């Protein structure tokens, strides 16, 4: 079970700079993958491609596992609706048992007392904790994190970190960030994204060294590319976990 990107070529906003140049990438379920890249290198776009929510102009993606939306994305929540209504929306979207899903999310997020409150009037920590718990309760094969793993109160962060580490090898995650420490502390496989290519590392120190050299504008290592496969297709049903 994996998500594989083949020969993805894509330009940035406005069609100017080349964001991905014949890029190949494979994410297997059970892996803890870190994508390191500098600002505007295309990390968020790459996560959206993995999620299957970014149009592909050249290349293709083979998806045989369900993938979350990039966390902590929360714009699907309606601020003037209650927390419970927002939870039920995600429950319906993914065909979950409404009541059980509501209970599990509220428990995981620690927001039982806010269920009937409008989201807009809830304390600030509710939204990130709710977003995290919603995605975790859907039980995707691969989770995508943009910029950081968890936001919220410290107690929740500790609980969530344990949860994330415990989900491997049944599930996996991809964390895209420019913070080397976050990536090396939480991941086993590292990709350095630079000038439209990715270089793969399995050693944190090598990845860190390469990334730092990029930051100093002295990258010397050639990107390591994977062999493309011939057959592929978009499969949204797997994204929806069916």
């Amino acid at each position, binding site marked *: 079970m994996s998500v594989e990107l083949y020969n993805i070529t894509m330009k940035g906003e406005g069609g100017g700079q080349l964001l991905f140049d014949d890029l190949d990438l494979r994410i297997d379920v059970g892996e803890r993958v870190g994508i390191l890249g500098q600002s505007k290198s295309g990390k968020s776009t790459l996560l*959206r491609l993995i*999620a*299957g*929510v970014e*149009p592909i*102009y050249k290349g293709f993606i083979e998806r045989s596992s*369900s*993938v*979350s*939306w*990039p966390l902590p*994305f929360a*714009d*699907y929540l*309606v601020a*003037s*609706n209650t927390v419970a*209504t927002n939870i039920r*929306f995600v429950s*319906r*979207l*993914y*065909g979950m048992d409404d009541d059980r899903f509501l209970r599990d999310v509220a428990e995981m997020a620690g927001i039982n007392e806010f269920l009937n409150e409008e989201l807009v009037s809830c304390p600030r920590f509710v939204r990130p904790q709710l977003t995290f718990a919603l995605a975790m309760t859907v039980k995707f094969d691969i989770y995508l994190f943009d910029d950081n793993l968890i936001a919220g109160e410290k107690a929740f962060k500790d609980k969530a970190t344990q949860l994330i580490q415990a989900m491997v090898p049944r599930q996996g995650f991809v964390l895209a960030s420019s913070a080397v420490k976050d990536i090396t502390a939480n991941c086993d496989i590292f990709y350095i994204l630079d000038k439209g290519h990715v270089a793969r590392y399995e050693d944190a120190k090598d990845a860190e060294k390469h990334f730092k050299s990029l930051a100093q504008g002295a990258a010397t290592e050639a990107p390591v590319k994977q062999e493309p496969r011939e057959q592929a297709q978009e499969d*949204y*049903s797997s*994204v*929806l976990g*069916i």
Partner: protein
Amino acid sequence: MYQSWKAQLRVLTALTLREMQSQNTSLDYGYAWALLDVCISLAALTLLKVFIKALSPPGMPPILFLLTGMLPYLTFQATATAMEGAIVRNRRLLLIPGVTPLDLAFAKAMQIFCTYGVVFVVGAVGCSYFENAGLPRSIPLVIMIYFASWLMGVFYGLVTMPLSRVFPPAGKIIGVVWRFGLILSGVFFLITTFPEWTWPYLDWNPMLHIEELMRTYWFYTYQTPVGSFVYVSEWLAGLAILGLSVERYVRFRIPI
């Protein structure tokens, strides 16, 4: 295949309910305001009818006559104009895997169908009681032709959606067309009100056929001389093919 359709239906249901729950949420009784909105539109158009002093045809209760004309047209118009707006307003939802622009557009269309459908049923029952009118001639055919008016709005919306994306003032121009459409589609009049020589110039309009058929299926005293369900079906099929093709063509070419 079946699983994919099931999943798509699930997404559509979730989005439709979300669309309903998001209506006027800043106000108390949020969704009730959406229903009231339709009632106010109906009342305004009824006043317009009084203003132009048009008379209802004999044998047709006046308010029910108006209701059977206005609801299909308002449903068509609201559906056709709201779909693009729904995609633009909810475009962040497209970051959720499995949610497509078409889902957002169809969810909005479903919400309109439910809202206007409820107003139609409640209004028709109320008017029939108030005006002491009997049941429609054929309830299944009334439902079918009302559904056709909604479908016409969906497919017309699919065709015009990209237009507004490429050329934003298109929405305003289409709005002007709707005002003429209200008159030309037989919302306030039957086609028999017009001289017979004008019929060939008016009956190209599929909405006129829908209005005529609605009155024929509702009232025992009226048989349309021009309304054709086959003609309506041909328009639906044509607009469906054109609308879906246009949507597919612009999907990756014109950003939302």
